[in-house]
């Protein structure tokens, strides 16, 4: 992954010739592991995860904050990783879809998505699951209407919404009992 990127960015520089910028050192704790990157300031957190570290679970849908496919948790709070720069997150703790399970033991939200068949193509799913975990952490959703409203930042082109909501209701019930 890393070699591929170096190659890709090498050819990018010769064709488009962006002005050279001093890569900065950025330290990110991702899924409990410390990563130190040398990257340019304009690399989004999303691109840092996918292209520099190889965590491709986090998806790029729109790259403009409109779809939620890139949702990750920063210090437990859900955000759009496309709308922040990696350098702004220096020193922070990031959890991606790859970091939710404990070894082979899936996170309850992952299990619930499987139980309820809460996906079709799966492209939005990592973002949906991270967003749903963030929603439970926030503790503001008390009923189906709330869940719908507070999951509105995640678009599913396959329209798996009904089953996504059912999965979240299941986990909410587990958290409460």
């Amino acid at each position: 992954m890393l070699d591929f990127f170096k190659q890709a960015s090498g050819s990018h520089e010769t064709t488009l010739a962006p002005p050279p910028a001093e890569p900065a050192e950025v330290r990110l704790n991702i899924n409990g592991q410390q990563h130190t990157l040398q990257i340019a300031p304009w690399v989004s957190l999303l691109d840092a995860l996918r292209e520099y570290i190889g965590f491709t679970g986090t998806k790029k849908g729109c790259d403009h904050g409109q779809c939620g496919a890139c949702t990750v948790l920063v210090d437990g709070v859900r955000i759009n990783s496309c709308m922040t720069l990696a350098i702004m997150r220096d020193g922070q703790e990031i959890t991606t879809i790859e970091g939710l399970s404990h070894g082979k033991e899936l996170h309850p939200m992952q299990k619930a998505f499987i139980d309820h068949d809460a996906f079709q193509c799966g492209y939005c799913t990592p973002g949906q699951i991270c967003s749903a975990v963030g929603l439970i952490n926030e503790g503001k959703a008390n009923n189906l209407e709330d869940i719908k409203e507070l999951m509105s930042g995640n678009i599913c082109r396959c329209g798996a919404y009904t089953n996504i909501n059912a999965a979240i209701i299941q986990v909410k019930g587990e958290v409460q009992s």
Partner: protein
Amino acid sequence: MNTFSYTRANDVADAVQNGSVKTNFKFIAGGTNLLDLMKENVERPDHLIDLSRITLKEIEDTADGGLRLGALATNANTAYNQKVEERYPLLSKAILAGASPQLRNMATNGGNLFQRTRCYYFYDLATPCNKREPGSGCSAINGYNRIHAILGTSEHCIATHPSDMCVALAALDAKVNVTGIHGEKVIDFADFHRLPGDQPQFDNILEPGDVVTSLDLPKNNLSKHVTYLKLRDRQSYAFAIVSVAAALELDGDVIKDIRVALGGVAHKPWRIKSAEIALIGKAATVENFKVLAENLLADAKGFGSNTFKIELAKRAIVRALTEVAKAI
């Protein structure tokens, strides 16, 4: 996105100092508007000064019974803050009507004030736009202008300010605390944003390098009868076509205080204080609310695709006020 250099500001003084020595720089806070515009090459700063680590994240009581909202507090932390929910529910409702949970977790109170118009021609580098490129013309006036302004427009620009939060801040008579190279200043919310006139490139009255440090909400008795009515093309996660921040203080059915600010209709939140004052001491009736609606929209002008907003705004005002008058 263009290339740029990056500095992280430690505190407000550091941010102001950095701004004073840099040219073509931008502050960045949550990043949710600036990075969007940078990815479209609408904004092309050579340098970013990151405000996000500055400790202006508190929400605290002020000496005169009001509330101070730190400029770097997130929109989510502000909307869900217990003091805001109890004393300024209008603000909570307006914030929660905007964007998505993820975006509200990133967006800051300061950044929200500076978000730029969602005019599609402003975003499209292939089309003329006086706001993006002064003197190039306005594509919206004779173009497709469904999301555009009906009040306070000029022949140079008919863009709207897209914020929901700012509509509530206008209704609540907020004050904006600013620190710049020439020291500190306090700006009434009504004066913060400007109308496009012949300089639509300027959204507000601040000077380059000015940092918003906090917002002050004065004490009021407007926590009981409030609503934020947002009309949009889908039920959630869309900008307002028309929105109404409405608040009443009632004595029986007599109006003691009334606030009505409109979003989605102008280059700034739209409020006419004289129209509100005219209703004080009168009964909270549909007839009186209709008078206010007519007064607020008296100078409205449509541009074709957005002309429907004039009637829509009037009806939205009456509906919002009727709803809040009923709610005890």
